[in-house]
């Protein structure tokens, strides 16, 4: 699948483990639910006298459904991963995500309110990091984060963001013009 490439994504790539993690989080509830249903079915059938073939068919159906959900979510997450676009351009941070309903946010560096890196439980297990950067709006808090990068990329992104932001907002720091070579 064609991956949305940008300079920033080349330098600080998304981890492919993100697809796996998202597949797990996306299917976990379904898995638990279906296993509970299966458990109830088994309990009902063992208490009853009728030991017909329906339990086998039901088990097969439930596992089939599980597999189907897993496959669909996995493919969707693969797609999501492929179109995930982020780029730190000269003036703006551009983040675009969503394969079916794309949403693109552009934030000027001067408007970044804070940069932070976090991990949830599954991130800890997979060794992934989420780099958040937000302006003062609610929607930027929702949309402006780069999820699922590994430690070097997370540190790199954070350092680069902090560096650029502090450069851009400090008016006092005047760089010395380059000297002509003699």
């Amino acid at each position, binding site marked *: 699948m064609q991956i949305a490439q940008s300079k920033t994504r080349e330098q600080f790539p998304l981890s492919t483990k993100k697809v796996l993690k998202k597949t797990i989080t*996306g299917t976990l509830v379904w898995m638990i639910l279906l296993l509970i249903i299966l458990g109830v079915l088994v309990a009902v059938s063992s208490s009853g006298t009728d030991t017909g073939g329906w339990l086998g068919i039901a088990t097969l159906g439930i596992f089939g459904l599980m597999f189907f959900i897993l496959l669909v979510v996995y493919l*969707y997450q693969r797609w999501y991963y492929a179109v995930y676009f982020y780029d730190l351009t*000269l*003036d*703006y941070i551009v983040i675009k995500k969503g394969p*079916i*309903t*794309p*949403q*693109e*946010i*552009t*934030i*000027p*560096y*001067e*408007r*970044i*309110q*804070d*940069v932070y890196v976090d991990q949830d439980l599954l991130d800890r297990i997979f060794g992934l990091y989420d780099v958040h950067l937000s*302006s*003062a*709006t*609610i*929607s*930027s808090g929702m*949309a*402006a984060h780069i999820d699922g990068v590994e430690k070097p990329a997370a540190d790199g992104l954070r350092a680069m963001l*902090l560096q650029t*932001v*502090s450069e*851009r*907002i400090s*008016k006092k720091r005047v*760089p*010395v*013009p*380059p*000297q*002509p070579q003699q």
Partner: protein
Amino acid sequence: MLNNEIVNYIKSELVKGEGKQQITDSLIKAGWQNNDVQEAFNSLSAPASPIATSPQSTSEIVTEKNYPITKLWIFKAPIIIIVISIVALLFGYYFPYLLIALPIYLIANPLIRANFHYSTEEKFFDVRQGVFSKKQRHLPYGVIQNVLVKQDWFDRIFGLASFSVENASQGGGKGFFGGSKSFRLGGTYQQQGESVGSSGNKVNIPGLKKKDAEAIKLVLLQKMKENPIEDSQSGL
């Protein structure tokens, strides 16, 4: 001879919003020749950056006449209602109140569309709207916090997009939670931002053609770059 060092320096200074004269002065003070500096400036204005190639030069004022809300947008809500009704009918349900809403949309949307105007003035992004109660908004380019281009399912199918800019003003929640919500694959709710024009901290222009939305984005980003504000709101 064109010197990359000067070019890079000029670029970094321009980004900070320094004037051409100041940059030239400091470079000449550092010992560069005037024509070297001018050459560097000329080379900078020539190349095709994505913003420079935007169809509208930024001195021109872009209005809803250049990039209008498409007529299709009028029928967006009605089409969605009809589709939902048909699907519901297939399952043996029907929602009469949805059909009551249909003519309301068909009357209201053309009026809203006809009364919605925006223009990219020199210092402000002006938005005029309202059928009965009129509202005018002048958004300084410098305070724009972020720029969004979104497509929902309908937009994606018909090649539309909605464009919005936000600032950090109070009532930020109003525009955000006021909009309709729809179900998205993956089980989370997503805000659609379907309000027209300014509401809360947001100015939203729905139902644009995708390429028009991109074009407005480039114009606005260029304007934001040209009109920085001195007092940064960033907390870093």
